[in-house]
């Protein structure tokens, strides 16, 4: 697998139903690939992601920003005192408060530091500080 966009979430984004701003809450979870096999073509909402695979989070991304050329950005995030199974992926979704309506947007399993073995310490996610930041849509 590689980093990717959930296609059905992107369709909602294209319809103007996803707002990368304070209008919507964007959340991130850190998870275990042993308990969730991503399907970017068909998975649309958080309820497609096995609850047992979600090791840490959700943490809400702050300082959401849209930059030139469709680049989306936000502040770095931290999962404190993280413990559990080894984690191979992060995903970002629009958090509506209901798993059945929270759109899956971005899946990341390729980054320096992944996979990560949780050891009870903190895990900080630093988004790209270059041209792509969190993602370029």
């Amino acid at each position, binding site marked *: 697998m590689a980093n990717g966009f959930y296609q059905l979430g992107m369709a909602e984004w294209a319809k103007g139903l996803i707002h990368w701003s304070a209008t919507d809450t964007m959340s991130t979870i850190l998870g275990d690939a042993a308990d969730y096999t991503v399907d970017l073509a068909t998975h649309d909402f958080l309820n497609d992601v096995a609850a047992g695979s979600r090791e840490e989070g959700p*943490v*809400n991304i702050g300082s959401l920003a849209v930059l030139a050329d469709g680049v989306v950005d936000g502040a770095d995030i931290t999962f404190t*005192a993280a413990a559990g199974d080894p984690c191979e992926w992060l995903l970002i979704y629009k958090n509506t408060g209901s798993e059945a309506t929270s759109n899956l947007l971005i899946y990341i399993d390729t*980054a320096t530091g992944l996979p990560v073995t949780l050891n009870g310490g903190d895990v900080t996610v630093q988004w790209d500080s*270059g041209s792509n930041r969190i*993602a370029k849509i």
Partner: protein
Amino acid sequence: MPQTKIRMINSVHGYFRDGSHYNLTAGEYKWVDEAKADEFIVKGYAEGRLSRPYSDDEIAAIRASIQVISLDQEGLTNG
């Protein structure tokens, strides 16, 4: 326990000692226990006033447990 006002730099998810959950979002101002505020400030997660000076060794020890996942130049592009 004394409280300290901090401004979050990172968004941080975790649990307080009493087991209650917190999800502090970057940019948010928050009053938290002095010890937690010191921890967040030293780790670089928040801005605020430390309750006391910390030595370089103390800072290094506090930061030692942090693991980092970095997108580097791997930030995602669509197409």
